[in-house]
């Protein structure tokens, strides 16, 4: 690839942040180059400055953030010095960008075809018929099923994966020299992610485009990259060819990131108790929306006839893609949602049939940890209060509850002296620990964890999972662990149930389900894990 021409090179680029930010510079002294026909992956955790770099290249930085040093040469032209009009010419035609969340990047009021056609009407003077033909050709290129219908569809009528395909079609409309992809698959399900990654790879090879691919996931890097740049705190800590960085990382931070990619194999099975603490049988939940006198009503079977057992002291993983009903099931178990039918037996009591008032009284037996560490803590309460709330509601005197809260802080690995701070003063991982402490404050028998690590960076994920495993051991907790990420499930679960369209398609011991999947859907899920080959090889090497 040495003979390929360089498309974009950043030379000593520095971008300063406004005063009062957590560091003076978003990017400091960043130098890299991308040649045509290669995929350069920029990897880093949240706050590493990788998205800021993409925005700097497009000159789309927020007002108070400025480029204060360095050059960005795009085909020999310095983008730092380009005028606003010149930048408009370059954006879309020279450099195109795709974003993480296609739903917010598309205009909800215009059809997909219209929005792609707009690229041509702005940058070219083709006739309407020619543009129409080009749009169809593009949609075929990105393998949207039924391109003619997709062109007439509005964004909400397409699935997440199809929307991302449409975004890619739009980005590639004018054959840009460089495509910047900012976490384009992070919001997608694993199976869709695998398809989109393959599509980007295919298109890139066919069109010889240079791709700057931003991601936080080393699995994705292993899947798609030619070269890798690793960023931390706005600095490039390491760059090189993908095989070299993955197999022989030089910098400690790179090693740490690669080590944090969870292994695919389940740990050795533990001895499970013969007694079930939680028995779910035949639970269903159906939503009916709209429709007057039964006409045009839509019926969604969110959960259908789910039966599961949770042995005392074990962890049951519920795995599935978005829309599989796993979160609805979790909310049925804690009665945030009332199930339509079925029974949920906890210590002999049927939770599915308890009255509201009894649920409120019994709720300390079963507690929940939520997904979003930013939304699940009331921003106007101090951390200690948040943790003490539960016991206070159930009659513990306030002073006692607050004192116990400090002990819980130590238990979940937080500094008890930080208990007087407000949630926004903690990092994402720390907040999730507060959420965990809040759930544990009521000394529950069963903990329902709804995607507790999905919003966290990989290295923080590993810490929180370790904490959960420790607490399970120490407190004798039984955990229902809901996740979309099979790698996470493999690390902590004794038993796994795979859900699809509201039903459980396969369940069993984690080692068996992951090692020898029976259902085609489970097999597809396992095959779609990004960087699967790399991880398997690494795991094999580690075992020798």
């Amino acid at each position, binding site marked *: 690839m040495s003979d390929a021409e360089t498309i974009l090179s950043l030379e000593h680029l520095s971008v300063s942040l406004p005063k009062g930010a957590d560091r003076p510079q978003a990017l400091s002294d960043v130098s890299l180059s991308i040649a045509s026909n290669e995929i350069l992956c920029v990897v880093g955790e949240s706050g590493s400055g990788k998205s800021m770099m993409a925005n700097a290249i497009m000159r789309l930085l927020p007002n108070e953030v400025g480029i204060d040093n360095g050059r960005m040469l795009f085909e020999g032209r310095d983008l730092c010095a380009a005028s606003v009009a010149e930048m408009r010419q370059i954006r879309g035609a020279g450099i195109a960008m795709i974003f993480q969340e296609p739903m917010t990047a598309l205009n909800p009021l215009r059809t997909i075809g219209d929005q792609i056609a707009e690229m041509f009407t702005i940058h070219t003077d083709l006739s309407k018929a020619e543009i129409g033909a080009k749009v169809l050709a593009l949609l075929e290129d990105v393998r949207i099923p039924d391109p003619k219908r997709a062109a007439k569809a509005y964004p909400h009528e397409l699935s997440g994966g199809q929307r991302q395909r449409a975004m890619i079609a739009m980005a590639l409309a004018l054959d840009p020299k460089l495509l910047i992809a900012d976490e384009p698959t992070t919001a997608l399900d694993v199976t869709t992610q695998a398809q989109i990654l393959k599509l980007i790879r295919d298109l890139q090879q066919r069109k010889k485009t240079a791709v700057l691919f931003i991601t936080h996931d080393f699995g994705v890097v292993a899947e798609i990259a030619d070269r890798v740049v690793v960023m931390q705190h706005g600095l490039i800590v390491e760059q090189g060819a993908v095989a070299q960085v993955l197999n022989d990382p030089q910098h400690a931070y790179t090693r740490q990131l690669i080590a944090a990619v969870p292994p695919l194999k389940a740990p050795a099975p533990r001895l499970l108790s013969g007694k079930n603490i939680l028995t779910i049988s035949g639970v269903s939940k159906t939503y009916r929306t709209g429709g007057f006198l039964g006409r045009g009503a839509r019926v969604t079977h969110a959960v259908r006839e789910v039966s599961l057992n949770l042995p005392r002291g074990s962890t049951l993983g519920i795995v599935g893609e978005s829309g599989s009903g796993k979160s609805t099931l979790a909310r049925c178990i804690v009665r945030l949602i009332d199930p339509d039918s079925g029974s949920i037996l906890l210590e002999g009591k049927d939770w599915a049939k308890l009255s509201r008032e009894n649920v409120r009284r019994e709720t300390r037996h079963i*507690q*929940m940890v939520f997904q979003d560490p930013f939304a*699940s*803590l*009331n*921003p*106007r309460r101090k951390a200690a209060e948040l943790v003490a*709330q539960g016991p206070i509601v*159930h009659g513990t005197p306030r002073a006692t509850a607050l004192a116990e809260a400090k002990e819980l802080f130590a238990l979940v690995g937080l500094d008890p002296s930080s208990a007087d701070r407000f949630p926004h003063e903690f990092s994402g991982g720390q907040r999730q620990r507060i959420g965990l402490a809040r759930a544990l404050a009521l000394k529950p028998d069963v903990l329902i964890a709804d995607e507790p690590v999905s919003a966290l960076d990989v290295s923080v994920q590993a810490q929180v999972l370790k904490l959960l495993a420790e607490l399970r051991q120490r407190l004798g907790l039984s955990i229902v662990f809901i996740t979309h990420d099979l790698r996470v499930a493999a690390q902590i679960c004794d038993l796994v149930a795979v859900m699809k369209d509201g039903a459980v398609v396969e369940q069993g011991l984690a080692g068996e389900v992951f090692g020898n999947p029976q259902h085609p859907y489970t097999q597809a899920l396992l095959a779609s894990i990004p960087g699967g080959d790399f991880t398997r090889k690494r795991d094999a090497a580690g075992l020798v």
Partner: protein
Amino acid sequence: MDAIKRYFRSPAAVAGLLLLLVVIAMAVSAGFLYPRDPLALAGRPLIWPFSNPRFLLGTDNSGRDIAAQIFYGARISLLIGGVATAIAILIGILVGAFAGFYGGWVDNVLMRITEAFQTLPNFVLLLVLVAVFGSTLTTVTIAVGVVSWPAPARLTRAEFLSLRSREFVQAGRTLGMRDIQLILGEILPNALPPVIVYASVVMAVAILLESALAFLRLSDPNVSSWGNLIGLGRDVLRVQWYVSAIPGIAILVTVLAVSLVGQGLNDALNPRLKSR
């Protein structure tokens, strides 16, 4: 604390607060500066301002000191503004919180009632209430409060609708909190900032409503209010225009001060919206 700092960084907000403090100081010092009844005859009628040192702002058509009436009027305006606003916000939060939290038929019923109130012009409703219940200071204040609650109610409802499905509210539910604990302890503190800001608008409108009522001579004639003075000045508006103009300026300044404080609060409590 940050909010207070942000508030004092805005010159307009500080100016508004100073003006409001001046009006409050007038209300407080009225009894001390003008110990006599402001509605008692004090001198010759219709003395122009600044022509007689005894009556700095002149006298009205029955020979009462205008300056004294302005100072005592500040009390009435602030009282009516404050109490009526408190009534309106309280009813508004109550109705909005229940409608937004429970949704379904509770929401339907409460919102239809709110709309019924909103479709009637505020002032016409106020006239009806005063006509039926009489025009003492108490009834006027309550009436102004009662006609002003629909907008705060809708605002509170909107906030509750978006907050009630947040994860921290669900977390509160799984901890076993009662609905009332969720409403008052979890959601309301987060829903309050925009409602507090809107309270300043309600207060400004309440002061204006009372003045308009007094201008029509339908407010309590036994108290010295700015509106009453404007109403009196109506008879001599063409020549002795100052009788109406001076209380008019007082109303303008007070409403302006309240609005500036409200805007300042808005910027201080929602700092992210300010730069847009």
